[in-house]
Each structure stands twice: as structure tokens, then as C-alpha cells.
């Protein structure tokens, strides 16, 4: 177990993007995801791409980490492109491969959809790359705040998330310990048929669950002993604050929206 284990994919480069309030980041990304679907001209896509790529550059996150985030969806992007390429039968025939006609419209649509995908993934992965999980948790608690009025357990949800984050490394260490203990008793995790290997996980999971329950019980008692009585009347150490930087982001985003609608065809 490395001592610098970081949960998620946060890259601490301390850029302007990192310093933005996590609530601003989540909100802007949400609206970005919405407006991406309004683009319909080369120029409008260009404006959107400029914003996304610009943010990525500003974040100073090394290129390979961003690419890593895109890895699982490359297939999807390529697949949708090809699908559009071969299925769309509108406009003129652009060229033909292996006796299959590829239409102009297919090329355009495939390109547009893939670009859309790419932009969405790029922007959302920027969130997790530049924001710590606990900041995201705090932001979610704040953003969902209004739902408290309809009795939605916002505080409890956030607490659950932060406790999970805190215990992930602990449980990982424990899993390692148990798997070693079981391996020393002859459980084989690595070889055998798929069925055998799935079966071998049982003696790993059972002790892990038992101990997790015990931990939960003890933690609950420790929390109570330290005066925890729910979200009511609680103050918070971690403070979210909207700074000038956030305001600039809002202005920039507003300009982006205007530019987008001006460049639409």
C-alpha cells in the first residue's frame, strides 16, 4: 500500500481551476452539458471546444492524465462515429470503401456526435481531476441544500459519502491483510477456472463484511460520544466561498452561451 494513496483521480497542481469553488465547477459543468446539445455549426462547436480545451490547459493537469480519463470511452466515441458513418444515408456520396457508400451527411453527423462525446467527457473528467472527493461531497451537500425542505436527508447523504471516502483506504488495507491471511491458509485467488476464482472471493468477503459491520458499530458509538446528533445545529469547519475567480467564471460562461447562440446556424 503506497503511503500517498489518493482516492479518485485528483491531481494536485493547484491551478486556477483547482481554486474555483467546487459548487461553481459542478454548476458550470451541468450547464455546459446542456448547451453542448445546442451546437449545430462548425463555429459553434469551435466555441465549445475552445472553452473545454482552454479549461484543460488552465488546469495544468498533465495531458496523459486527461487521456487516461478518456480511455474507457474511446471505444464508444469511435463506435458512434462509425455507426453514423455507415448507417446515415443522406446527401451525396462522399466516397466508398469496400463497396459501401459513405455519405457526406454521415461523415458530418458522426463527427459532430463524437466531438460532443469528447467534449462532455473532457469537461466532466476535469472536475474529478481538479477537485478532491471531499470538496465534491461538500459541494453536493450545499447544492442539494434546498431539498432539505422536502425532508430529503442531504446532510446524512454527505456524511455517508465522507465516511466512505475516509474508510476506503482502511478497508483496502484490510482486504490486503485478509487475502494474505487466507492465502496462507491455502486459498488460491489467482489460478483456476473463473468459477473457482469467484468462489475464492467468498472467504475474503465474509471476514471483510463482518469487520466492516463491527467498525460501523464502533464508529457510530464514537461519533455519539463526541456529541454527534445529526445535521441540526452543526457548524462546519470546511467552508465553501465564492471568490472573484468564480464570478469571472460565470461571466466567461455567460459569454460562451452568447457566442454559442450567435454562431448557431
Amino acid at each position, binding site marked *: *500500500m503506497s*503511503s500517498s*494513496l489518493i482516492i479518485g483521480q485528483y491531481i494536485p497542481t493547484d491551478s486556477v481551476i483547482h481554486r474555483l469553488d467546487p459548487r461553481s465547477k459542478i454548476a458550470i459543468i451541468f450547464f455546459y452539458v446542456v448547451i453542448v446539445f445546442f451546437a449545430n455549426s462548425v463555429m459553434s462547436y469551435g466555441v465549445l471546444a475552445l472553452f473545454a480545451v482552454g479549461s484543460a490547459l488552465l488546469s495544468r493537469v498533465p495531458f496523459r492524465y486527461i487521456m487516461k480519463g478518456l480511455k474507457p470511452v474511446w471505444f464508444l466515441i469511435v463506435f458512434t462515429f462509425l455507426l453514423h458513418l455507415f448507417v446515415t444515408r443522406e446527401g451525396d456520396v462522399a466516397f466508398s470503401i469496400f463497396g459501401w457508400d459513405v455519405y457526406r451527411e454521415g461523415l458530418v453527423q458522426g463527427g459532430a456526435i463524437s466531438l460532443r462525446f469528447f467534449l462532455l467527457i473532457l469537461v466532466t473528467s476535469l472536475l474529478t481531476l481538479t477537485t478532491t472527493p*471531499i470538496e465534491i461531497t461538500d459541494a453536493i451537500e450545499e447544492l442539494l441544500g434546498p431539498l432539505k425542505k422536502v425532508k430529503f436527508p442531504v446532510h446524512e447523504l454527505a456524511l455517508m459519502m*465522507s*465516511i466512505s*471516502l*475516509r474508510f476506503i*483506504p*482502511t478497508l483496502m*488495507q484490510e482486504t490486503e491483510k485478509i487475502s494474505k491471511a487466507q492465502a496462507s491458509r491455502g486459498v488460491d485467488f489467482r489460478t483456476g477456472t473463473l468459477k473457482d476464482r469467484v468462489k475464492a472471493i467468498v472467504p475474503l468477503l465474509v471476514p471483510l463484511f463482518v469487520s466492516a459491520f*463491527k*467498525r460501523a458499530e*464502533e*464508529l457510530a*458509538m*464514537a*461519533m*455519539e*460520544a*463526541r*456529541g*454527534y*446528533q445529526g445535521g441540526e*445545529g*452543526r*457548524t*462546519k*469547519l*470546511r*467552508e465553501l466561498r465564492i471568490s472573484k475567480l468564480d464570478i469571472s467564471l460565470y461571466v466567461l460562461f455567460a459569454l460562451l452561451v452568447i457566442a454559442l447562440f450567435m454562431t448557431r446556424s
Partner: protein
Amino acid sequence: MGERQVEFRHVSFKYQEDMPWVLKDVSFTIGPDEWVAIIGHNGSGKSTIAKLMNGLLFPQEGEIIVDGMKVTPETVWEVRKQVGMVFQNPDNQFVGTTVRDDVAFGMENHGMPRELMVERIKESLEAVRMEAYERHEPHRLSGGQKQRIAIASVLAVSPEFIILDEATAMLDPKGRKEIMKTVSDVQQERDLSLVTITHDLQEVTLASRVIVMNGGEVWMEGTPRDVFSRKEQLTEIGLDTPFVSKMADHLKEEGLSLSREPLNHQELLEDLCTSRLNM
């Protein structure tokens, strides 16, 4: 607010109606700035005492008075501000994702303003000499360090009583020493009463008073010197005495006379030097 003390008045407790009594008619008082060690076998009711003091459990009979307040479900939040607790497992009481967040947890619960929290985090981390670890995550700390953070978290709320419920049981000797040093430093610096529930005899010798529990009753009470000199009574209920104490016994059997029951090597050594001169 009444006088600064915890008082057990004829407290009896059982976990369930059809179960035997865990505590039977237990009475004692813990005064200001005292250090009381509670020892006893597993199942002697030591840990139950800790949970009763903090209002995690309520007695069926008798009452517990903390600072003149009777511990009831109504006063329990006030009581928990005055009685801090450190548990056995260093991992299972660490709530925050970083040291700083964990120290703040208790204060957040009590609704303290943010500025005060920041100040108190600094103070209490300094008190346990962990100020360099403020931003560390729990998995990067050793067991002893985590327990020191647990103590800091309790200190931050500035209680009058701190209970260590076998807080050193899961630590290695080094971690144990660290904790005991921290605790005794803190107790000297601040107005605090300490209650340590323990198996560790070395810890007991540091206390100003010892309560020996057996079968849910107070079996013996006195200074550590007092308690360890009554060896027959301790061995009767299967409790061990410290090595120095045993050593002193053997020396006495050999005809040496010691002026007092020694609590540590230093004391025994001094005593031996002087008795040699008397011979």
C-alpha cells in the same frame, strides 16, 4: 453548573432485562484534577462505567451526577461536552478524512463558530505534539498517532473529564508510551480529570487513585501503592501486580525490609540503597 466532579450513586446496570447485572450498587466520586485508573477483568464492568459516564448508556438503578447534572437523555448533550472519551480502536473513532477534519468533528457537533474551531485545532494539536500532521489522512498515521489525534479531538471541545477506555490496548509499547506521556503532560497543563480504564499495570502506577472492579462491584479503592501492597486480594480475583512489586515481595522474603511498596524501578532502587546502609 455544580461542582466539578463525577459521582456514581448506587448505580446498577444490566444490558437487557433478562440478563445478569453488569454493575451492582457502584458508588464512587471522581474529583477535579484527579487521575483515576479503573482496573479489573474482562466483564468486570469497567467499560460499562465509561459508557455510563458519557451517557452512552443509562443505569436502571441509582444515578450519575456530572457537574451537578444528573445524566439523563435530556442532559446528555451537555454531559458529553464535559466528558470526553477515547476508545480502544484507533481506526474506528477517526471520523474525518484528514487530521484537521477529525479534530473539528466534535466541535462541529457542538455548533462552535468556525474561527474558534481553527484556533482550537491548532491548540489541541500542539498539546499532543501533532501540529505537523494537520493535513494528513488517517491511513498515513500510526496507531499511536491516531490515538493522539483522538485525544486532541477530545481536548478541542475542552471537557473537564477525559475517559481513556483501554485507549492503549491496541498499540505497541512505543505507541503506549507516547500516549501515556501525552496524557500526563496534558493533564498537568490543563484543568482536567482523567479516568483511564486499562489492563496495563504501568498505566495504573501513574494514576493518583485506583478503583479495582470485580464482578460488577467496587472491589478495592486506594492509591496505586496501597492497592499493589494488597497483593493477596488482587491475586484472589486473578489480577497481576507489576514486576517491581513482585520483585519487592521476593526481596522481603529474603529478609530485606523495604520502607514502602515501590511503584517503579527508580523507587525500588532508592529503597535498596538506603536499606543496604541500614543493615
